[in-house]
C-alpha cells in the first residue's frame, strides 16, 4: 500500500479480536481520526455483535476480504486441542486431512501413503473445490466492495496462486492492494503493473504441495513435496514426521476439534477406501 500511496502515510497495527481490547486499541489509534480505516473483514463481524464497537463501523471504513481458496490444497486440515493448534511433523499449523484421519484410525504409514490417490481425492470431493472456493471468495470480495472477477482473472494467469488454503502468493496480495489503493487514493495512487515483484513475500516459507492428481484437474503441475522454512519432505517423509510428532503428543488419546469438520460421510468413505 505504501508503494501505491504516492507519499501518503500508511501504517498498520495488529489488533485483538477480544472486544474490550479492540475497543481500546481503536479508540487510541483511530477514533476521531480522519484516516481511512482498512480493516480485515473479520473485524466487521466483531463490530456487528458488540454494541460498544458499533460506532467504529464507519461508512468510510474499507473492509479487506480474507483470501481463502481451497481448490489447490483441499486436503489442508486444522486440528485443535483445547484451543491449541495441532502441529504437523514440519511444525506448521496446516495438517493433512487424510493423514490425520489415517493416524486416528491406527493405519500404518504405508497404508496412509496408499490413500494419496485419485479415487480417494475424487470421493472426498477434492476435485470439486474450484467452484466452491470461487463462490465463497466472490461473496467475500463483493461484501467488501471489491471486484472478484478482475482479481481472479489477474491472479490465475500465473497458475497456482496460493501457498496453502489461506496463504496467497504475492500476485494475489498485490492485485487486491491495487483495488484497495484505487479506493483509498482514487486520484493519486501509483500504477505499477508488476507490483508483486517489488514486495517482500512473507508467506512463502510454508508451501503445501498441489498434489499431482489435483493439479491434473486444475491444469497445473503438482508434486508431493512439502516445505516449511528450510525443511523439506516427500510424501513418505511427511507422513513419517507427522506420525512421529503426533505420537509424541499422544494425539490418539486427545479430543481433537477438526476444522473443517471430518463428516461421518467422509469417515465412512475413507474407511471403505482404506479397506477397514
Amino acid at each position, binding site marked *: 500500500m505504501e508503494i501505491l500511496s504516492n507519499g501518503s502515510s500508511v501504517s498498520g497495527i495488529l489488533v485483538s479480536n477480544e472486544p474490550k481490547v479492540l475497543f481500546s486499541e481503536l479508540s487510541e489509534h483511530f477514533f476521531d481520526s480522519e484516516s481511512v480505516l482498512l480493516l480485515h473483514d473479520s473485524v466487521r463481524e466483531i463490530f456487528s455483535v458488540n454494541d460498544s464497537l458499533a460506532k467504529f463501523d464507519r461508512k468510510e471504513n474499507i473492509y479487506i476480504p480474507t483470501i481463502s481458496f481451497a*481448490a489447490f490444497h483441499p486436503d489442508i486440515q486444522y486440528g485443535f486441542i483445547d484451543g491449541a493448534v495441532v502441529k504437523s511433523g514440519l511444525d506448521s499449523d496446516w495438517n493433512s486431512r487424510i493423514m490425520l484421519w489415517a493416524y486416528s484410525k491406527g493405519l500404518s504409514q504405508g497404508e496412509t501413503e496408499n490413500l*494419496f*490417490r*485419485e*479415487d480417494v481425492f475424487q470421493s472426498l470431493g477434492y476435485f470439486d473445490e*474450484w*467452484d466452491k472456493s*470461487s463462490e465463497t471468495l466472490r461473496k467475500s470480495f463483493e461484501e467488501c466492495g471489491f471486484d472478484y*472477477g478482475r482479481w*481472479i*482473472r489477474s491472479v*490465475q*494467469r500465473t*497458475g497456482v496462486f496460493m501457498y496453502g488454503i489461506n496463504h496467497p502468493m504475492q500476485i494475489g496480495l498485490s492485485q487486491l492492494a491495487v483495488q484497495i489503493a484505487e479506493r483509498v487514493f482514487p486520484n493519486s495512487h501509483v500504477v505499477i503493473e508488476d507490483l508483486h515483484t517489488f514486495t517482500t513475500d512473507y508467506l512463502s516459507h510454508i508451501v503445501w504441495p498441489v498434489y*499431482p*492428481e489435483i*493439479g*491434473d*484437474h*486444475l*491444469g*497445473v*503441475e503438482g508434486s*508431493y513435496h512439502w516445505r516449511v522454512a528450510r525443511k523439506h519432505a516427500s510424501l513418505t517423509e511427511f507422513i513419517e514426521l507427522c506420525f512421529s510428532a503426533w505420537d509424541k503428543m499422544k494425539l490418539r488419546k486427545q479430543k481433537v476439534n477438526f476444522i473443517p469438520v471430518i463428516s461421518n460421510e467422509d469417515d465412512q468413505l475413507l474407511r471403505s477406501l482404506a479397506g477397514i
Partner: protein
Amino acid sequence: MNDKLNPYRGLPSFHYWRSGVADVGLGQFDPVEAVKFQIGESDQISTLGSCFAQHLAKHIQKSGYNYLVTEPLRSDEEQTEMAKMMASQFSARYGNVYTVRQALQLLDRANGWEPKDSIWERDGRFYDAFRPNVFPGGFASEERLLEERKRHLASVLDVFTQSDVVVFTLGLTETWMSLQDGAVYPVAPGVAAGSMDESQHVFKNFNYTEVMSDLTAWCIRLREMNPEVRILLTVSPVPLNATYEPRNVWTSTTYSKATLRSAAGDVASTLPYVDYFPSYEIITCPQVQGRYFEDDLREVKEIGVRHVMRVFGKHYLAKSEAAEVVEQKRRFSFGRSSRSAGVSSVFCDEELLDQEE
C-alpha cells in the same frame, strides 16, 4: 433498449469471451457443447494422424476402451521398445500421417494403388518411403520390404473396414511430393533415407481448397468402405518443427493450423457421421497461458493431454458402471508411478528436422 433487437443477449455463457474463456477456472475449460455420437465400450476405436494422435491412442488404451490394433508385433519380430511402440501406438504400423493427402493416399494404397517412388535406400539398407521411421535401420532387401508392406497394407485395410470409430488428428499442410505421380511422404526425401532430387520431388503446401477436397473425399470413401463408421476429427496443437516456406515457422504454423481447423470444422458440419473434437483449442486457449506446452513451446505436456482426454472422456466415452469399477482398480494398481510414464514415448518424424538445423 429492446433486447430482442440484440441477437447476442441472453445466449448461453459459452458464447461470451468473459464467461466462456476468461473467467473459467484453471483446468475447467471445456469447449465441447454438443457431440454427434458417443463411443461405447464395445466400439473398436482406431487412430491415425500426427504425433498428437499417439497421445490419444495411449490414453484410449489406458482408459480401458477397445483400441483397435490390426498390425501387432509378431513373435518372429525383434521385440525392441521402439518396435513395441510402433506396433501399439498406431492402429496399423503406418507411423505418423501428417497431411490429409497422405491419409487419402494411405487409403488408396490399401486399395491397391502403388506409387512409383516408394523405396528409399541409405547405406545399403532399404526404407519404405511412406513410413521410413517405423522400421529403424530399414530392411536388408527390397523383397523383405515389399513383403512387410503387403502385410501392412492388408492391416491398414482392416483398420478402415473394422473400426467403429476412427479418430483422425490433422497435423500439417506442408509436405514433399513425388513429381511422378503425386505421392506424398511423411518426411522429406533425404531426411530419414533416400535423397532429394529436384527433378523427382517437389515441396507442397496444401491450401484450404485442397485440404477440404481431400478430407471430404477421405471421409466419404472411408464410409463407403465401412458404412457404419463414425469419424472424429481433431487438429494437432503441436506447432511445425520446421517450415520450408520462406517465412517464420510460427507464421507457417498459423497458416497450417487455420487451414486444417477450417477444413475439419466444415467437413464435420457437412457430413452427419463426422464430428470435430477441439483438442487444438484446449491446448492453445489463451486461458491456459501456454502452460500446456513444454519448455520448447512445441511439445504438449502430459498434463495438457490429460485435460484433453478428460474432456474427451466426459463427452464421448459412454461408461457403464462395470467399466467405472475396472477403471478405479486400474488407477489403484497403476498408482502414482504411472502418472508420468510414457511422457516421452511419442515418436515424431518431424523432430528429425531438428538435425537439419
